[in-house]
């Protein structure tokens, strides 16, 4: 009930301060537009099908020969699969501001002390803070995802939409995306409870996307192709990291220092 109470508070606050969600919306829209621009708009504008690009054709073979798809459709499928991962991760960067601000922001607004004087435990407080940033982000990401798949159905080559409905997509959407978001936001909250400036927390928190970006780049250049099983493993690993981070964040949350040393 206490977690729910604080999550409701976070939502109420966000509903009165919608601009705080703008970074999430902006990066979602950008992440939404980019794959369609690359996979659909550029070939149409230039009259050069993707299949004419030998490098892309070669890299897309990681999907297998896919006799059911044309060369163009296979490359589109490859690109939409790759961008799906980016699409799941990018909105989190926007939500970092919310998470980074969560503890230090309460302290700066002098709302933390009365909150800590209630029976709320550190675990409840930190879980509520993560959920407060995660749920709106996931809602925006889910809306974006709907548009993403809608766009594929409407604009992509025949068979691409059907081919997207696979285990890899399911693992990415249901496991890797939310788990990456949890890790990033929990990291931001750990940092938020250790620094006395939200900007510092945000800047540290954004570092979480560095390994994920490296993963994406490796996939795009064809060095690495993550199978559904590998993605599931990464998702499981990220979930374990999140759990560990939760334990660490509770241990590192020092009420006394926050109340007495921060100014």
């Amino acid at each position, binding site marked *: *009930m*206490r977690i*729910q*109470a*604080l999550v*409701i*508070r976070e939502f*109420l*606050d966000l509903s*009165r*301060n919608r601009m705080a969600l703008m970074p999430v919306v902006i990066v979602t829209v950008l992440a939404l537009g980019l794959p369609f621009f690359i996979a659909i708009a550029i070939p149409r504008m230039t009259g050069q099908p993707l299949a004419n690009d030998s490098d892309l054709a070669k890299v897309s073979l990681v999907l297998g020969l896919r006799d059911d798809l044309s060369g163009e459709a296979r490359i589109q499928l490859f690109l939409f699969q790759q961008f799906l991962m980016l699409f799941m991760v990018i909105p989190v960067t926007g939500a970092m501001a919310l998470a980074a601000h969560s503890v230090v922001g309460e302290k700066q*607004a*002098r*709302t*933390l*002390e*009365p*909150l*800590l*004087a*209630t*029976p*709320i*435990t550190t675990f409840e407080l930190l879980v509520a803070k993560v959920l407060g940033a995660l749920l709106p982000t996931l809602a925006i990401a889910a809306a974006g995802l709907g548009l993403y798949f809608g766009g594929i159905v409407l604009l992509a080559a025949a068979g691409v939409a059907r081919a997207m409905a696979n285990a890899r997509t399911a693992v990415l959407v249901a496991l890797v995306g939310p788990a990456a978001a949890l890790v990033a936001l929990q990291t931001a909250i750990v940092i938020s409870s250790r620094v006395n400036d939200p900007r510092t927390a945000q800047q540290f928190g954004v570092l979480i996307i560095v390994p994920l970006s490296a993963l994406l780049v490796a996939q795009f250049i064809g060095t690495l192709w993550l199978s559904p099983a590998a993605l599931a493993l990464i998702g499981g690993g990220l979930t374990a990291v999140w759990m560990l981070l939760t334990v660490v964040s509770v241990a590192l949350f020092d*009420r*006394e220092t926050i*109340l*007495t040393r921060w100014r």
Partner: protein
Amino acid sequence: MIVAQDLTRRFGSRTVVNRVSFEVGRSEIVALLGPNGAGKTTTLRMLAGLIAPTSGSIVVDGVRLTRSTGARLRSRIGFLTETPGLWDRLTVTENLRVYARLYGLDRPDRVVDRVVEVFGLSEHAGARAAELSKGMRQKVALARALLHEPAILLLDEPTSGLDPEITRSVRGLLDERRTSGCAILVSTHNLDEAERLADRVAVLDRRLLALDRPATLRRRLTTGRVIVRVTGDPAPHFQLVRSFDATASIEGHTIAMRLDSAEERTPEIVSALAAAGARIVEVRQEMPALEDVYLHLMDGQH
């Protein structure tokens, strides 16, 4: 209800609270007086379970306050922090509802509606906290501290910066809570408030300098001066008065004298003056103000 024993708190090498012991009983208000940096807020934070004492103990209702009992005991304590700490973008009702749920109250919405009414906040219930005046914010914060009807109230300068009308209503509310059995510890700079409100006053300057009823504290500094006001000219009675105190003086209709054991000798003088035909209007023993007592205690510190 609250027993603080040898409370000490150090930050690094700096001792902010030094071996402070006191008790606050049921239906009692104790005012914590002291200059800035005297350790009042730190003491309140320790009692609220927000920071741990370096040494010493706190017992609340027979249960020692520790890390493991903290959450449970905090549900019995209402703490008004130095600043109201309201969420600016939430309305008064929303602020209170979140706290009602944090305290795990049954029917939180109903409790909040009642508290809003009791505190005279109905007119502002839908207003965002950011739109409220300082006084109203403080009132909402006090309502928040009382939402769960705590047995113990810790208030850090509850009337600081409030206008006289709101100050009066806050005092009235505290008086009601005392009547209903609450143990209340109030930190304040306002000596007049301490005298009006508190059953006992604790003077703190890192260590506890005094703890007693305001009248008892004032009596400590009494000068033994007794003032007798009469109708008509007091001069005919001057010789009589001088037989009690050679330094007695007359000013207008007033005779002032300094007596050892003033409480015992005053009736004797009054009887003698009356027998001599003096028409006595008023007899009073001159008492120092609580402010004088406070300053005297502080002077002794520095």
